[in-house]
């Protein structure tokens, strides 16, 4: 049941319109909507989304440069671009960066920006917590990368198998940075998952039932559930590793009777859901882009949704396919081999439904569409090689070879990254008010696609010819020379493609200056996010939108006649909001999310170097939380809004005068314990996770 009778667009439950005294008295609340401070302290889901995306792109360049170093080293046999040690750090950080600092935040960017818009909400459920997620993620990412300058980056591979990741075998601080950095990023993801699920469950526009939600929203919801349940598993694994390394625990100490497979199980119980965390957002994006540019609704909406849910579920029962050769026993191998294979079914449904969406459509091959179609094609290749890994006996030949490297680059680069590039081209006008250049975009697409296949296609062959992963060099007579050279050349073509993308951003920005804005709906799209001005105004929508069917916005523009003919009934500009509302009350910026997030890396540095720094970080976290809890989500002085809502008006004056006691809230305004309530709600989770980082060592 949706509460259509009641306005659903509240900012946060328990939001407090007025507070008699300002937060701590010491610090004035951050104000204004321009300048760097307006970004640093923002709680606007759109700005947060954009910053997630920007950070992801920066990390893409870092991870990409690492990839290029790998390829340079492997271009010819016996390469000496990197030392053995450096190579191990570079490929480890390449994997970690690409997975945790590129694809995940890129997905978070889309989730933050689009999810509230697609369900017709004003913001996420906990705006400040959202800001905290961003900064915690960034803190974790930067923390990880500082390891380069502090005695060496992690060198145990992105899945950090124990005991090689233990102190004896990896004595530099690198793996400590790995364990703690991922822990911090994990806190960010967990908090964000809670936030976004609550948003979807609670804040949909009137009439926006779950089965009217866009497929992207659905996929993002599934992803948040996967994060919710998967993050704690790696949290535990990383704690065990940290405790082993820093405090001499025995979890992976074979001499004490430990079994290294424990790490593998824990890592992959997280790790396999993780790969669906990486792909489902892209699936969602493709499910938005393809219908728009095919001019048809998504084919088989319920199947699309349920297959996404099914993938999410089945993703929990296949983890040990990464361990077919680990010696876990034939029964486990058989069971996981079978469960893995059948994941191809719901995935195949998605692929074929996309094709069916295109079938009989009028395909407008824009850049966004090309990336989406490209992603379908490339992902299929990766998925099919995935099925050949699932055949456990065959995987004993394939595992840890470049055949696997080919598989996961096809699914991650070819699926996730291309899908997200599609999303960037598609929603760029919504985010920035101008399109990216189509011509450059298409050239970039072809360069990228060709380079991508040139790089990773040959890796299938290399792998089947027996080239192992994670080797910093190969012998000249192993027969790997030719295809490695191809791959290296290809990787530079990819780099060119990526550079064209960045170039496009620059060119398009410059061209857009002074040019008329793009209008709310440049693609004749379907989702609610297009029903407001571009770029999206801070308050998202001017009015409430009542949803009566899927693709509500499209149906307001077009009508399907009795003969199935589609007729325009309105122009987008007439239907969409122009963003001119001035009386919208928004949550105010806040310092505290940044402060708390800043404490996290300090705690982590301290654990590595000096416990005093940990203390400092803990103080920062505690102080930040305190400030946070006692700061109202909303600052009455922040902006001068014109309320036309009676209750609000009276709240403003009535409560402002009274001295802040609970009893003073006689007019129904919230009591002052609201902050405490947010603490209890999610602050508890946050506090618990931070405390795990600080207080849980015996």
């Amino acid at each position, binding site marked *: 049941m949706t509460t259509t009778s009641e306005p659903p667009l509240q900012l946060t439950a328990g939001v407090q319109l007025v507070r008699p005294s300002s937060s701590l008295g010491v610090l004035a609340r951050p104000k204004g909507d321009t300048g760097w401070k307006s970004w640093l302290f923002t709680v606007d889901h759109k700005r947060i989304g954009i910053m997630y995306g920007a950070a992801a792109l920066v990390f893409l360049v870092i991870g990409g440069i690492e990839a290029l170093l790998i390829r340079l080293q492997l271009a010819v046999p016996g390469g000496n671009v990197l030392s053995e040690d450096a190579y191990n750090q570079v490929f480890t950080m390449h994997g970690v960066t690409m997975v945790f600092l590129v694809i995940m935040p890129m997905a978070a960017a889309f989730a933050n920006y689009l999810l509230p818009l697609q369900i017709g909400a004003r913001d996420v459920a906990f705006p400040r917590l959202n800001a905290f997620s961003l900064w915690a993620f960034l803190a974790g990412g930067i923390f990880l990368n500082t390891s380069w300058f502090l005695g060496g980056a992690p060198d145990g591979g992105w899945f950090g198998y124990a005991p090689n990741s233990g102190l004896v075998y990896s004595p530099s601080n690198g793996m400590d940075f790995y364990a703690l950095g991922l822990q911090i990023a994990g806190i960010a993801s967990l908090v964000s998952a809670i936030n976004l699920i609550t948003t979807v469950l609670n804040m949909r526009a009137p009439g926006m039932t779950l089965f009217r939600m866009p497929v992207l929203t659905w996929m993002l919801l599934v992803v948040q559930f996967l994060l919710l349940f998967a993050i704690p598993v790696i949290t535990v694994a990383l704690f065990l590793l940290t405790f082993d390394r820093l405090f001499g625990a025995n979890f992976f100490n074979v001499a004490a009777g430990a079994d290294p497979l424990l790490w593998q199980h824990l890592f992959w119980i997280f790790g396999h859901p993780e790969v669906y965390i990486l792909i489902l957002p892209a699936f969602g994006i493709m499910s938005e882009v393809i219908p728009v540019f095919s001019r048809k609704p998504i084919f*088989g909406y319920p199947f699309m949704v349920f297959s996404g849910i099914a993938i999410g579920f089945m993703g929990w029962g296949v983890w040990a396919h990464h361990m077919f050769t680990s010696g876990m026993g034939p029964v486990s191998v058989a069971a996981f081999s079978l469960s893995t294979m059948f994941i191809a079914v719901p995935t195949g449904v998605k692929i074929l439904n996309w094709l069916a969406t295109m079938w009989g459509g*009028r395909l407008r091959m824009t850049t966004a569409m090309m990336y989406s179609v490209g992603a379908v*094609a490339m992902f299929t290749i990766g998925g099919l090689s995935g099925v050949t890994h699932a055949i456990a006996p065959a995987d004993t030949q394939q595992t840890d070879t470049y055949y696997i490297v080919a598989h996961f680059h096809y699914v991650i680069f070819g699926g996730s990254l291309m899908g997200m590039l599609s999303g960037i081209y598609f929603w760029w006008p919504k985010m920035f008010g101008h399109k990216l250049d189509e011509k450059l975009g298409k050239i970039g697409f072809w360069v990228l696609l060709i380079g991508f296949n040139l790089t990773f296609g040959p890796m299938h*062959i290399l792998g089947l010819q027996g080239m192992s992963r994670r080797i910093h060099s190969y*012998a000249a007579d192993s027969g790997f020379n030719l295809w490695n050279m191809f791959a290296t050349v290809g990787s530079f073509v990819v780099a060119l493609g990526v550079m064209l993308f960045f170039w496009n951003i620059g060119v398009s920005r410059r061209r857009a200056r002074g040019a008329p804005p793009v209008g709310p709906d440049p693609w004749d799209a379907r989702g609610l996010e297009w029903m407001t001005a571009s770029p999206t105004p801070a308050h998202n929508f001017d009015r409430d939108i009542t949803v009566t069917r899927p693709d509500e916005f499209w149906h307001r523009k077009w009508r399907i006649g009795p003969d199935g003919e589609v007729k325009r009934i309105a122009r987008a500009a007439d239907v969409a909001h122009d963003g001119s509302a001035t009386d919208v009350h928004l949550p105010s910026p806040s310092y505290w999310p940044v402060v708390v997030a800043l404490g996290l890396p300090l705690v982590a540095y301290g654990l590595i170097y000096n416990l005093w720094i940990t203390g400092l970080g803990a103080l920062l976290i505690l102080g930040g939380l305190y400030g946070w809890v006692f700061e109202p989500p909303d600052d009455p002085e922040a902006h001068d809004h014109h309320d036309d809502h009676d209750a609000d008006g009276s709240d403003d004056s009535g409560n402002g005068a009274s001295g802040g006691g609970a009893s003073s809230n006689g007019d129904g305004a919230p009591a002052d314990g609201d902050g405490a309530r947010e603490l209890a709600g999610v602050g508890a989770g946050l506090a618990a996770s931070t405390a795990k980082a600080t207080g849980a060592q015996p």
Partner: protein
Amino acid sequence: MTAEQPSARFGRPLWRRLGLVGIALAAALALSACADEHPLDTLTEAGPDAQEINDLFFPVLGVAIIVFFLVQGAIVYLVFKYRARRREAAAAARAEEHSGDGDDLYGDDEYPAQVHGNLRLELAWTIIPTILLAVISVFTLISLVELNEVSAAEDDLRVTVVGQQWWWEFQYHLDGDTSTPPDIVTANELVMPVRQQVPLEITSRDVIHSFWIPRLNGKRDAVPGRTHPWVIEANEVGRYMGQCTEFCGLSHAYMRMYAVVLSPEEWEEWVQGQIVDAAPLEPGDPGFEGQEVFLANCANCHVVNGVTDVNLDGRLDGMIDYAGANSITSALVAGAAPNLTHFASRTTFAGSIFDVYEGRAEWIPYLEVAERGDLNRGHLAAWIRNAPERKANDADGARGMTAFPGLTEGEIDSLVEYLTTLR
């Protein structure tokens, strides 16, 4: 293994035919399936286990390739068939207007029939792959069972394989009893008889490694604290390359190995040569000086059976003791260095990345050392002088062989001389 009668297996002929698609493509892709050029090639099997795996892999690859062509073909078809024609003029006009209606790019206001789905179609492409995969899973299970069969008798040869940073140790139990000290201990080259299934027990002394001779069988991880059964068998006499495939630190890439497959007679001869201890050299014997230098510098890590005066049982104990009870007095984490008793009978050293003899012959008669050409003095001397420079390791000597800056060139020469006596 039931490799003797492959065609008798359930459904195999048809299954194999499907595999032809896979084979064709794999072969085409690989350009050359010549095993000499690709010593680690997984597609040119040389043993029944690898054969079993490829019998399963090729048909699945065939299915995958068919699906690949269907999907890619469909994409290309759809894109060309249903592509909207750009209407440049109209587009320009719209762009001028900036109506924000989303058609300024294509100037196309037309919509095709709005199809929301088709239950029957969707069920079809849910059920068909399911059936396909169910069939594949049956064959997968069959293969799994077959691959886990051990045909060797209880008292046949059994080899304990021990991985460590960054070399392999092979402990031979000729009577099949792995609970007793092994009869032969060698490094990096797994010598084995042809057409005989050799059961292995794979383990590790430090981190996780993975034992893999691609042309003979898939891989199996060497996990410390665990012993994993595995089998290996070769159809033909030859030399098959292997590589550690689980990331194990600095010199992971340099952790290779060979399976050396001998005819039954040669195998017998090899065994006879290996089970004897080395004889301590007397003053005046060639290599005697080297032996002295060896005992002074090398014997706290390396064993030469019969020469180094350390308790043999402690050294060669097939049971790996992690509690530090190794009789090795060095700081080696793994607690073991290659056994050098018959060093000169091997063809490669240090994780099989260097040749003991000059010139890597296509196939060296394994037992006739005399025919192998000249000793690779340069490599050996360089190794003894400064091993970390030749093969990255932990510089403090805890993992891998330390450098010996203190040795004079003369001493190094004498050591090389001594090593050649260890046949």
